[in-house]
């Protein structure tokens, strides 16, 4: 039981630190924050009003406590630009990013899992060397470059996919999938290359372990050894990688949404930075970071459910 208590405590501490960092970064604005936000030529009345809403005169700790307190109640402040609650704006955009991330992860598994297993089974230089160079391409071509290249080929030249924009799932699922395919594909190239690499290494190193030799000495054939023993054990470290991939996908979506003009969180971040809409940025950052922390915590949990060794440690 101690394991879970420690994990939960760690989870809470991480969330706390995330909120402190997010809060503090926005406190070290050079100069008068209200002036910075509204610009030097702003109306003095406006500046004063803003200063009041930002509580600049209170001590930092108090401001932090009240900020976290209202954040816990779902209140992340008011966006300067939209003059609407930040949480509402985020909620509107989140479905796009969530769908994009989900699509990307599904594609990653569909591409990564079979190739990784196949490569581990055929561990020969003539397969590995060309593949590892191709996978390097997947990792190294930034997803936004890949996205633009895909647009120029499939949208501009071949006209297979609609041009930019997003159709909500509720309106037309097929159009939604079509619209999200290119962005999630360009994201999943990198992530599946990472998945394949880890999976391959994990399977190969697992195959070298003594217990696999024991399994062979029982007279099990290669496929049974692979399925019943190797694969299950080598997927465990891959779970951790998958947790990291979720963060990667969310991070990548920030840029890719701008490439494909998807009205998600990433697009929102970019526009809000351009307009210096600080409460909105703060809320978005906090929101994304919390998702990542929650994902990592669930990966830990999953890990402990699958691996009997962990609970005792």
């Amino acid at each position: 039981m101690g394991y879970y208590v420690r994990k939960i405590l760690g989870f809470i501490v991480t969330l706390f630190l995330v909120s402190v960092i997010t809060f503090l970064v926005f406190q070290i604005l050079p100069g008068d924050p209200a002036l910075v936000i509204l610009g030097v030529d702003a109306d003095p009345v406006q500046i004063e009003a803003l200063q009041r809403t930002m509580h600049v005169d209170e001590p930092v700790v108090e401001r932090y406590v009240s900020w976290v307190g209202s954040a816990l109640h779902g209140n992340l402040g008011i966006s300067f630009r939209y003059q609407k609650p930040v949480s509402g704006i985020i909620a509107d955009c989140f479905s796009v990013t969530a769908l994009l991330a989900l699509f990307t992860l599904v594609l990653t598994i569909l591409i990564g899992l079979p190739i990784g297993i196949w490569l581990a089974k055929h561990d020969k230089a003539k397969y590995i060397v060309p593949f590892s160079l191709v996978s390097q391409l997947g990792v190294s071509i930034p997803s936004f470059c890949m996205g633009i290249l895909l647009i120029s080929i499939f949208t501009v030249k071949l006209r297979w996919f609609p041009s930019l924009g997003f159709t909500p799932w509720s309106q037309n699922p097929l159009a939604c999938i079509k619209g999200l395919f290119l962005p999630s594909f360009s994201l999943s190239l990198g992530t599946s290359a990472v998945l394949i690499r880890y999976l391959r290494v994990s399977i190969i190193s697992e195959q070298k372990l003594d217990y696999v030799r024991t399994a062979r000495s029982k007279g099990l054939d290669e496929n049974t050894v692979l399925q019943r023993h190797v694969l299950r054990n080598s997927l465990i470290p891959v779970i951790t990688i998958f947790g990291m991939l979720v963060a990667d996908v969310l991070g990548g979506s920030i840029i890719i949404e701008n490439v494909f003009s998807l009205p998600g969180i990433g697009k929102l971040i970019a526009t809000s930075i351009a307009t210096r809409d600080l409460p909105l940025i703060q809320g978005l950052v906090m929101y994304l970071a919390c998702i990542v922390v929650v994902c990592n915590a669930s990966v830990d949990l999953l890990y402990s459910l699958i691996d009997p060794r962990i609970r005792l440690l």
Partner: protein
Amino acid sequence: MEKERKAILEIEHLHLDYRIGGRFCHAVHDVSLTIHSGEILALVGESGCGKTQTALACMGLQPESAHIGKGKIYFEGRELLSQSKQQWNTLRGKGISMIFQEPMTALNPLVKVGKQIEENGRNHGLGKIQARESTLSMMEKVGLPDVGRLYSSYPHQLSGGMRQRIIIAMALINDPPLLIADEPTTALDVTIQKQIMSLMKTLNKELGTAIMLISHDLGVVSHLCDYVHIMYAGTIVENGPVHMILNKPLHPYTKGLLGSIPSYGKKDQRLDSIAGIVPSLENRPQVGCQFYNRCTQRMASCKNISPHATMRDGHMVACHLYPEEA
């Protein structure tokens, strides 16, 4: 007296090579040995002398990079090296079982130990209930307490000695005529080592399983085995009944090996060690005696002519000091 016994495993002139830098380097060179039913035979040597490679070849588990050049292995009269993958699979675990050195890593950490024993039975045709029953009875036979509970525990919950017992139970569940044990006690503490050794001796008597024991420890061998083969750099240099080898060693390497073992009896004496180390695969001579470079009694003929095994005083030795008698 030994003629009455049936030969179970016969290795004839086995050669096993690795390709290093375009050259074939032998890990096992012209090894021949026979194991009779119910016998415990030991293969003794320092690390890198090819004893594990020989054993793996009998199981068809040698690394993919290994190349078996010449030689035949017969198991109950059937030639093994030419058989198909499928035939190997039916043989392993039922005809010949093998246990390995590291009990800590030889079990799948994510599968209950009972299931791992059972798997070997199921794989060789036992039904579900039957397999479970014989798993439990086998676990009792190897001296495990509270088998019902142990059946569903995971390897990390057991001590090294218990794991080695589990592995032995797994190897013997199909009642194989031959068990190959590769350093089964090396990784264990001495008092636990003693437990496992006496267990193996009991099982050998009760079940009649022949055992091929691979060890570097002549002490272990002397108390467990009937017959010993001493290996050096891929060749068998001397073999014979264990008391003969220990009391009247003939080959200079065997003498050196025995002289190197420290004991209370040798207190305040220098140990008669052998100079140098076992040569690595690349540095082994193609012809001549493998022990030439470290031998204190070497002669000119040792360098160029490989010695043949000759019978002396009731055991075989491959050394030019003991020429073939006409």
